[in-house]
């Protein structure tokens, strides 16, 4: 290694098994280990500047993949709210059923894809871009509780998200114990 080059480098201690694995990955991609590690560190710094860890960002990426697999698309929020408002009054039951069935599909998919499908579902609700400001999940041996809060979703959308959660949880093998739904607030309790 030339002196000039070594002046621009620093040695960092890391677990040997991880270094070996990354070395193999760099070889597969036809990159030098040094360049490969630089790319990783660049992204770690970028993640930090976005106020996230790489773990959080990869978790979110996996959730976005769930949406893609489910055939979800980005839609203007105003259109969604308008459509719900106009159709809910006359046909609220069938809309609820549609969201329930969609939730069931997500539940089945999460069960297949994630080891801890319940945690993945919690993450999906938090990061699902459904305007939920807070999503709490309390897990104990006998029950699972969800509490979702949003400052600005309509009564109708609140009800539909509640049905979605129920659908997913039923697919994950839980039964509804208690439900409470108020504009922007959902509280659900499930048992195994």
């Amino acid at each position, binding site marked *: 290694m030339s002196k000039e080059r070594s002046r621009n480098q620093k040695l960092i*201690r890391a*677990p*040997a098994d991880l270094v070996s694995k990354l070395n193999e990955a760099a070889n597969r991609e036809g990159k030098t280990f040094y360049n490969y590690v630089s790319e990783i560190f660049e992204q770690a710094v970028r993640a930090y500047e976005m106020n996230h860890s790489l773990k959080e960002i990869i978790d979110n990426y996996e959730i976005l993949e769930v949406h893609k697999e489910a*055939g*979800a698309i980005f839609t203007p929020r105003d259109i969604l709210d308008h*459509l719900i408002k106009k159709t809910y009054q006359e046909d609220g039951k069938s809309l609820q059923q549609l969201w329930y069935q969609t939730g069931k599909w997500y539940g089945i998919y999460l069960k297949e894809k994630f080891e801890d499908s319940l945690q993945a579902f919690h993450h999906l609700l938090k990061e699902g871009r459904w305007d939920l400001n807070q999503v709490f999940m309390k897990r104990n041996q006998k029950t699972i509780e969800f509490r979702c809060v949003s400052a600005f979703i309509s009564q109708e959308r609140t009800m539909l998200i509640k049905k979605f959660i129920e659908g997913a949880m039923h697919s994950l093998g839980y039964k509804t114990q208690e439900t409470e739904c108020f504009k922007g607030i959902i509280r659900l309790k499930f048992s195994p």
Partner: protein
Amino acid sequence: MKRKLLAARLDLADKISEIASRKGTLYDYVNDILEQAIRAEELGIRLKEVLDDRWLIKTARDAGFIVIPKKIICELAEQAYAKLGKKKMKKLWYETGQWYGKYYDDLKEFEKAVKRYFWDLSEFKLAKKGENLTLTCLSSKYSEVYPELFSKFLEGALNALGYSLEEGEVSKGIISLRFSKSKGK
């Protein structure tokens, strides 16, 4: 646990050390980073793409988009179409498109946004020739109503960007529209 030394670019190593000092030890922080890099590798994705996607979601949210299963939005659109009638529904999508046209305020930016956020489209192309503009959009044959409404959304956006619709063809899965530069724009 066995340890190895890895050579890192000086500026990055310094930055990583600085961040680590706020979080704990450098060793633990580097360990976390490398573990996630391996996780990404095992998922078959590149860290850069993952971070780009994260940015995409943020900008989508800022622009007022929401992720929703297409089945739901198509079903809602069809129900509302039957109840409210063609005219009102088309107006809603057209006006929303106008808002986005004004929001992006640039043809290229709007094209980029459509390609990014409507990932169900297998093709979206805007071809400019002099004063004329041709829009081609291909997607899965999911619904009859949705492409009609989506075409109004696109028309509204392009109208706000200074183009008037000359002619168009919309069928299941295909939207083909031809525009000309609006007078005075």
